[in-house]
């Protein structure tokens, strides 16, 4: 694939992520923050998000396995995931977190378990998609091109 095709593929892919609700305006904000002094900012912050989210999701799974469930603790974790996902623009993850918090408030274990599954699912999806996006970026840069804005 030549450079122009790669760049077109990149733009189309990125646009689809917004259309399908995987990403929102906040992701654009992050891209705008990236500059020559910090050319890997988006990849760095997204990688941090992946690392931290997996930690939170594992903690949530553990917390929901307990005999006596600590809903306050679960709520705190979900709240943090909501904050970080909204900050990087992972809109679908953020939306599940909102529902998750409602179930926490009701102390509904079934609802919480369902949401945990959903949030893992949405998280895995956005992770895969962002990794693909970054891969396309890398291919463009390797081919000597620039990333279309």
């Amino acid at each position, binding site marked *: 694939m030549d450079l122009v095709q790669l760049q077109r593929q990149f733009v189309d892919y990125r646009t689809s992520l917004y259309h399908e609700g995987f990403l929102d305006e*906040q992701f654009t*904000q*992050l891209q*705008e*923050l990236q500059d020559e002094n*910090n050319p890997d*900012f988006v990849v*760095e*912050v997204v990688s*941090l*998000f992946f690392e*931290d989210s997996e930690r939170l999701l594992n903690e949530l799974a553990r917390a929901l396995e307990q005999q006596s469930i600590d809903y306050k603790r679960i709520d*705190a974790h979900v*709240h*943090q995931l*909501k*904050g*970080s996902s*909204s*900050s*990087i*623009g992972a809109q679908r993850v953020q939306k599940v977190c909102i529902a998750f918090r409602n179930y926490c408030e009701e102390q509904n274990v079934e609802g919480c378990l369902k949401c945990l599954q959903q949030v893992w699912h949405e998280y895995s999806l956005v992770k895969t998609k962002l990794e693909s996006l970054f891969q396309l970026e890398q291919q463009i840069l390797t081919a000597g091109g620039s990333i279309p804005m």
Partner: protein
Amino acid sequence: MLIIQTKSLFLFHLYISQLWLLFFNTMNPSNGNGSMSTASSSGAWDGRDQFPAGLRVLVVDDDPTCLMIFEKMLKACLYQVTKCNKAETALSVLREHKNEFDIVISDVHMPDMDGFELLKHITSEMDLPVILISADARKQVVMEGVTYGACDYLIKPVRIETLKNIWQHVVRKKARNTV
């Protein structure tokens, strides 16, 4: 007759002392906040030509993703940024480096000490504007923050345009203190 004269004399003295205060403050513009005069001369943020660049911000958030984004955004605003991931650390930093910060931005929900407690400490010990940030938009929580003295309460995700305006809180506070 005597009573009226005493009252007039009192008012006269009051008037003169007000004039003197006004004169004193005009001659020493940085002295509006008592203990700040030495800090202002050594401090970074009186330079009107680069205003509001150089604003000295302390940002506190236990979430590493959010903290990294805030730092980048605040630096893009040309502010001087110090970041902390714990409220207790932030409080020690503020106590040890009094007068070296212009404003504090803090997340609300943090383990150990939360944003409200940090806010209470800061308002009682120092004269710094504090902005609270949270993903929690519930009215009662926002109300609590504002009631405890936060000069603003922002809902995550925070946009850079919002951070570009935070210097207004610093100026407003200084103006109030000078009165």
